[in-house]
């Protein structure tokens, strides 16, 4: 293809969008609507994934010492934990750190903690196991250490949540795939309407000797531009809507007892979304154009 032909084709595609304003608008809205729907499911899936991953990072066990232990005794407990081969890693939470956390928790109502200091809190250890299935044995071992008051094991909850997350991921993956197929169908149908409205034009071009690709290219350009514009609008709406939702939601969640759940930050996924939308919109537009033209090129 010569450069002047490419220029002509691109210009013609753009001019056609403008001259068929109503159809272009309809197509753009379809792309936007489909991508928005797609985006909603995508965001749900991404957030679930993000949160189950975060939950899996939760401590597998927390060991609380008696709160009156002195530094030396705490050291002994630490040595015992260090010496346990079934423990992959551990972190110590000092009295001071524990109190800071408590203060954070009662941020809105500091008066609750008035008169208390860190001394009433125990030192604790957050522990990760080498193999999560051994939690019962390890728990028993840890409880037998001198100076250990109690061992908490939130592992079971995490298990349930991550199993739940796994199924939600599968279901939303399936829904996203379904939505992509439906979008292609709707969009190529809309483009089919554009093509149908111009079938006479296409046949005229064929009669005066235009090759199939010469006729097809402007439509492909048109489809791609429509797809990209639709994607851009969908992206603007998604990023604005999600951005607002994310801020609000995270504020609310942090205040509630569900503080460990967090929505992924809009700024973290904006780029991925814009690329994905543009790719989907553009490809669907191009494929839609080619598919819906086939019938009318046979003159």
């Amino acid at each position: 293809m010569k450069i002047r032909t490419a220029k002509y084709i691109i210009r013609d595609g753009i001019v056609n969008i403008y001259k068929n304003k109503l159809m272009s608008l309809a197509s753009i809205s379809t792309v936007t609507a489909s991508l928005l729907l797609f985006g909603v499911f995508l965001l749900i899936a991404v957030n679930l994934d993000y949160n189950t991953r975060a939950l899996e990072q939760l401590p597998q066990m927390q060991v609380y010492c008696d709160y009156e232990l002195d530094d030396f005794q705490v050291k002994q407990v630490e040595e015992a934990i260090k010496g346990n081969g079934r423990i992959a890693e551990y972190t110590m939470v000092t009295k001071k750190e524990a109190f800071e956390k408590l203060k954070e928790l009662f941020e809105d109502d500091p008066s609750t903690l008035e008169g208390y200091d860190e001394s009433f809190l125990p030192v604790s250890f957050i522990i990760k196991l080498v193999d999560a299935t051994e939690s019962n044995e390890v728990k028993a071992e840890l409880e037998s250490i001198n100076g250990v008051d109690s061992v908490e094991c939130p592992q079971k909850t995490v298990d349930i949540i991550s199993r739940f997350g796994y199924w939600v991921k599968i279901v939303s993956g399936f829904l996203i795939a379904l939505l992509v197929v439906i979008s292609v169908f709707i969009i190529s149908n809309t483009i089919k309407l554009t093509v149908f409205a111009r079938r006479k034009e296409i046949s005229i071009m064929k009669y005066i000797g235009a090759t199939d690709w010469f006729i097809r290219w402007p439509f492909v350009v048109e489809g791609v531009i429509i797809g990209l514009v639709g994607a851009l609008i969908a992206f603007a709406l998604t990023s604005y809507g999600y951005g607002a939702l994310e801020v609000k939601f995270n504020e609310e969640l942090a205040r509630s007892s569900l503080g460990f759940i967090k929505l992924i930050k809009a700024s973290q996924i904006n780029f991925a979304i814009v690329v994905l939308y543009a790719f989907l919109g553009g490809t669907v537009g191009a494929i839609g154009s080619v598919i819906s033209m086939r019938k009318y090129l046979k003159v």
Partner: protein
Amino acid sequence: MVEFRNVTKRYDNGTLALQNVNIKIDKGEFVFIIGPSGSGKSTLIKLILKEEDPTEGEVYVNGYEVSALDRYEIPYLRRSLGVVFQDFRLLPNKTVYENVAFAMQITEALPKEIRRQVPMALALVGLSKKANVYPSQLSGGEQQRVALARALVNNPSLLVADEPTGNLDPETSMEIMRLLCEINHRGTTVIVATHEKTIVDAFKKRVIAIDKGIVVRDQQKGLYKDEDKNCQIYN
């Protein structure tokens, strides 16, 4: 230039449109193809443009064996000839100038060439002043002249017109026909399919009459009705 050898065309629904047609049209000729509606005129034109393929026999146009062309070669055949239709078939979204230029753009002609040729073609049909107007703003006769300019802009050696005056009033029809004659005088072979008696009688050119798919008359300087006893009859 154009040759039909033992061409028979039977449509899928069983209609026998052409039956053993033998025609030879030489370079520079002006030929009327006449006959009532449904006689097979349009099928003949469609075979020249390879809109349809013959069931039997061969069709040759401008050195192409049309009946044996592959799908991807069709555009090149169509570029080698100019076509004019009863319903003009102009692109509604393009101006007069753009419509004519389009026929050159599809051949990937140089912009310089396009800027030179299009005004010339428009001048030939007397529409230089309407270059920037859209087809819907033109009269039927003017639209047909745009179609003619478009057909001629690539300097084809053959011009095919299918009922070019079918949608026009008698006066405008004559104008268009005179234009076709002038084009013919410049050396272009012209084939006109029509069922309008006045036109055929006025110009006295070669007449090929078709009836029920059979060539019933092929006569030089003929009239619409067969009054010459010495006419050549095929089959």
